[in-house]
């Protein structure tokens, strides 16, 4: 006949279960795609974008003024460059995100101007357009 569980065993088991529920398993999920599969999936998404079938996400509430761009949400980590463009897609200004000062939702740079800008576009390191927005000019 086995010994009844001690209260410390129960406490450890409950603690372990709580930890698991909070942080999940420390082992990688075998159902997640491996890097090669993720690369193929990214290529597929790029092709959809090239064919015009996968439009980039929208910038959240961009407000543009001279030297300043305020956003409703920070740029994603993949963002490398952000630019202001005219209606015929001609570039007005383009700055590296790394060179921008201010806060994640209040970007400041001397090159940022409002004249002729009708669209804002954000690019990742490979030049892919990942965000786009219609700025409110003030």
């Amino acid at each position: 006949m086995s010994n009844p569980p001690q209260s410390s065993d129960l406490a450890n088991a409950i603690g372990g279960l709580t930890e698991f529920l909070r942080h999940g398993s420390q082992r990688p999920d075998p159902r997640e795609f491996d890097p090669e599969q993720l690369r193929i999936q990214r290529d597929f998404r790029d092709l959809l974008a090239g064919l015009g079938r996968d439009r980039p996400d929208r910038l959240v509430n961009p407000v543009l003024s001279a030297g300043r761009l305020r956003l409703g949400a920070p740029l994603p980590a993949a963002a490398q460059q952000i630019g202001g463009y005219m209606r015929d897609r001609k570039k007005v200004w383009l700055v590296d995100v790394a060179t921008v000062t201010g806060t994640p939702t209040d970007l400041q740079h001397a090159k940022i101007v409002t004249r002729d800008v009708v669209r804002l576009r954000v690019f990742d390191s490979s030049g892919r357009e990942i965000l786009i927005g219609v700025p409110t000019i003030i």
Partner: protein
Amino acid sequence: MFRTLARLLAASSIDPPDADGLFTIHPLQLSRWLEEVWAHGGAANWPGFGTSPTGITPEVVTRLQLPTGLLATLRSGVGVPGQFSPPPATGTVGAALPWDHLIYAYLVESTGVVEILREVVRRYVVGETLEATSNQTYSWMRATEELFFRDPPLFSVTGTVSALRPDAVVNRRNAYWRMFGMDLPHAPAGIDGLPWKTDVGAAANLQFGDVWVELLRQVWLAIVNDSNAVGANPTDSDYIAYLCQTLSEMMSMRRRAGMLAREEFGHVVTMSWFHLLVDTDNAVVRDLQAGAGPAGNAADRLARIAQRVGITPPRRARELFELADRVSPVLMFIEAGRFNDAAGAQLLFRAGSSNPIVRETMNRVIDLWQSATGVSLKDAGVRVAGPSAAPAPSQPVRLPGAGLTTTPEAVKTTTNGSAPVRL
């Protein structure tokens, strides 16, 4: 391609395509732009295909393009409609603009859009049975006639009409037959017999349709069982990869040395022009009183235009237009061999990331293909309970063989218009 250009002419990718602006561009400029697009290489220079180019390779593109010097002597200048300015930048990876797979042309043409808009243009140019047109409509009409209903410019990359193969309609059907072993669902008007199959030989991919349907069935089976943690799971990644490899090899065989490359480009370009017209409520659609509103779709506009000229479009045009957009990139990846091993094939059905775009695309393709063709793809997952019910096999013993419909339906005569137009 013209849908891509309309998208590039818009202020950004969140704005509607600038079809009205595109329709005012001179047809010679549009023709030259096509030469420039071809010279950029399309999918042959697309980063995602860099490791396994098949089909249209950079070598094929270079061999068939205009020499650079000639290309530079007469630029398209399509950047701003009404002006002569450099073409718009792509705004995405690389400078190349990929064009669609031949399946796009097949599915769009299956909607009857060419026959319907051909009749619209014919009526506009020979009389006044349709209302007077706006400037944009007249420009569209002229460009349509010049680009697609007469001989193409000499030595153009899209010039696949000649004294040896004089009919563009027959030429397109010939390409569909050779690549997919499929006919369009409607018979061509004024053409006796099946001339597009003459002298094709034994080289048509007659098994393509059956293998494709089997792939869709297997992917659906795998999607259904993807989250199975307990019990039997009939998913076989290797078999799905084998089906993809079979399709890839079939298509590659028809592409040797650049065969069908110019044909594919020309046919895709043609269909994108007609697709663009019914894609939005542009000036031509408004002139034809065929608007469907911002939430409307291409099939609704096509049906209203068809009504104006007494033609009945297929009931499944709605599905066919959407299928064309979704199947094309899938087949490009299959042809490039990206799903030829079990790990790659899992992308077709597994939810292994937060936004499994390949699986979502395949799921939608399965729904649309089933609805458009009437071929049941989801029955394999159904099991009838009871002692006498034999379990259905999850795979056929052999790859599907022949058995495709090899002849189109009989000619249908429309009844809802004044003109006895056939589709």
